[in-house]
């Protein structure tokens, strides 16, 4: 095999594959057209390993490892799907659906939602865990955008894009555990934020109906985070 210098050879789902030094399992898998489900990962943003959908089995490892943050090692043997992984992924989706108030039929993101389509992809047919029905608020104070906590899955993409790409640091996470929520500035209404540049990047990267642009309906309410890898590359080359 003619590999680039320092390239790592490894096995993924029984197939020999190669990865560049420092490349994550997720990135290498995608190059080899192997699907690993993800929600918190987004090409162009730093990874946090929070949603746990991308967990894979690595031979010899004591635990399951997140593909988005684990780097390929020489000789690694990775399994991206198994009955156990499929079961955990379904349960993860169920926990997310039951955590807040997801009623797709009345949601702005219906049919344009990464969470909804991920549930379909992973074959989630029903939710066995009890719905929690928390009482949550909607912040519509921003002139162009709305934040609906009922649909937020705390993936922190908004937090990361706003600090890593826009440099505004408007978003943060407040509280602990099940009480956590995303906030703007020091938990002030988004509309009064002094740091927000209204660039809209957070809205574009939000995988659910938690962040959306006002007055957009029908086909136009889809989101497009494709600007991200492009921006990243441009900046790295500058």
């Amino acid at each position: 095999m003619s590999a680039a210098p320092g390239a790592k050879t490894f096995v993924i789902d029984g197939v020999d594959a190669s990865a560049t030094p420092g490349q994550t399992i997720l990135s290498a898998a995608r190059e080899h057209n192997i699907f690993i489900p993800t929600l918190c990962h987004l090409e162009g943003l730093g990874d946090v390993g929070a949603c746990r959908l991308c967990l894979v089995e690595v031979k010899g490892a004591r635990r399951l490892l997140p593909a988005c943050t684990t780097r390929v090692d020489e000789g690694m043997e990775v399994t991206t799907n198994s009955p156990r992984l499929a079961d955990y992924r379904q349960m993860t989706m169920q926990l997310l659906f039951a955590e807040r108030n997801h009623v797709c039929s009345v949601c702005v993101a219906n049919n344009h939602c990464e969470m909804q389509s991920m549930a379909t992809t992973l074959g989630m047919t029903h939710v066995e865990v009890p719905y929690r029905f928390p009482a949550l608020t909607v912040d519509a104070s921003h002139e162009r955008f709305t934040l609906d906590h009922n649909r937020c899955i705390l993936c922190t993409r908004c937090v990361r894009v706003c600090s890593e790409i826009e440099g505004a640091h408007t978003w943060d996470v407040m509280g602990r555990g099940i009480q956590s929520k995303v906030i703007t500035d020091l938990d002030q209404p988004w509309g009064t934020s002094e740091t927000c540049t209204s660039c809209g990047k957070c809205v574009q990267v939000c995988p659910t109906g938690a962040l959306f642009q006002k007055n957009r309906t029908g086909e136009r309410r889809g989101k497009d985070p494709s600007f991200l890898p492009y921006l990243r590359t441009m900046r790295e080359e500058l």
Partner: protein
Amino acid sequence: MMSHEELEQTTAKVQQEQRAAGDRINVCVAAGCLSLHSDAVQKSLTDEAKKSGARCSVRGVGCMGLCSAGPVVSHEPAQAVAAEDKTTAQPTRLYGGVQPGHAAKIVASLNQEPVRELAIDTAMPFFAKQTKIVLENSGSINPESIEEYIAAGGYRALLRALHEMTPAEVVQEISASGLRGRGGAGYPTGLKWATVARAAGATKYVICNADEGDPGAFMDRSVLESDPHRVLEGMILAAYAVGASQGYIYLRAEYPLAVQRLGVAIREAKRMGLLGAEIAGTRMSLHLEIRLGAGAFVCGEETALIASIEGRRGTPQPRPPYPAESGLWNSPTLINNVETYANVSPILARGSAWYAAQGTAKSKGTKVFALSGKARNTGLIEVPMGMTLREIIFDIGGGVPAGHTFKAVQTGGPSGGCIPESLLDIPVDYDSLMQAGSIMGSGGMIVMDDSSCMVSVARFFMEFCMSESCGKCVPCRAGTAQMHGLLTRITEGVATHRDLDLLVRLCEMVGATSLCGLGQTAPNPVLSTLRYFKNEYLAHIEDKHCPAGVCECATTPAEVNA
């Protein structure tokens, strides 16, 4: 510059002063006794001693272990203070439940018979069965006096290492001792030190994890309050071994006394040239800072702790990279627990072979436990690894008080499990406790009797994990809340077998998929109680009845479902 000769001079001076002072009356002013107003006891003993003109000194000391008998006071006769060989000396007298009003009696008894009504039998198994390494000075030296620590043998190991050993030899000694991390996971300390020592990087850090957040645990606090220099000496030795010149002690802000005593200890050690630049005249420097945590349990997790020191939100991050390779400000970082550091100086002073001779094949030395719950004697104990749970609970702890029977012992706090009567003869070591479905943990040990409902116990710990979850990853954030909900349904008598099945599935999933140790171990209290006390779960579900009479099971399930 501090030299061996100066250590000996200091020691001689302290001993001379102590001899001159005559009898010694030690009052425990550690947190347990202090909360019972032992400071007032100390004051009236001091006043009384002055008034009587007796040749004696009254000192505040750290925890003496039997906290359930507090406020605790000990009396060392002058002859014992001066004796070279303590074993033949007149024994120290120990008093419990001492009130300010008892001061005159105690002072009057110095050359007389002990005060009978306050006396604690020092030959009882509670004391006789313990082995003190970490706690050897606790309760016998003044924690705010570096001279007393030196007089008790302190800082010798440091000077010897700095002058006579290479850093690699120090690492080698720790490896050979078999010491394992006392913060919970039991990772081999020598291996960790070697990794940091080997890691590339001009700047390295040492961190002491004193975040101690398990409910009911107070081992680390007590060590810091009773013998802070022991921890400092361990950290300085560690810094020498791995090549660090900056260190942090991450301490809970809720431990003001520990913060204060550690602050005094750092100042004193600097004054003596044992900390700061050019320690003891060598090229080794170490600057130590105290960082106060806001008390979030998850900040005890090493990556979250590092984030918190860096001034970021204290949430765990995926490992690898491990802190040993890339930790504080991306530099190689050694992070160990308080008790781990407290073992270092004795190991270097007495040799790894001496240390490795105590304990079991894979768990060496001793372990400090905070024994609490339904035992006659509760407090802070230190036992050799390998002692059975039965000896700890029934000999040291004195068993459960009359009228009740033993049911289970909980170790490892929210990450651990409940062990039943039938397994009490297993030795206390990392591997045996793990096999029994619990963990060593940091040293919490709660004795439970027949008045405890095991489902409620599991629910209590799940509630703790739910509210202490940082919320970053889905299985822990949403999973602990769901498990807590299901356990609540069981305690309310409204759960079905389907709920129980779902609970078991969630336990497995949350344990396998959570990002950090908090979520990964959160199911343990449920799994262990299900393993040994499943009948109690079934009683709540099938008979809507709580066998221990703790839960108020609903008679009409429909009400609660609504």
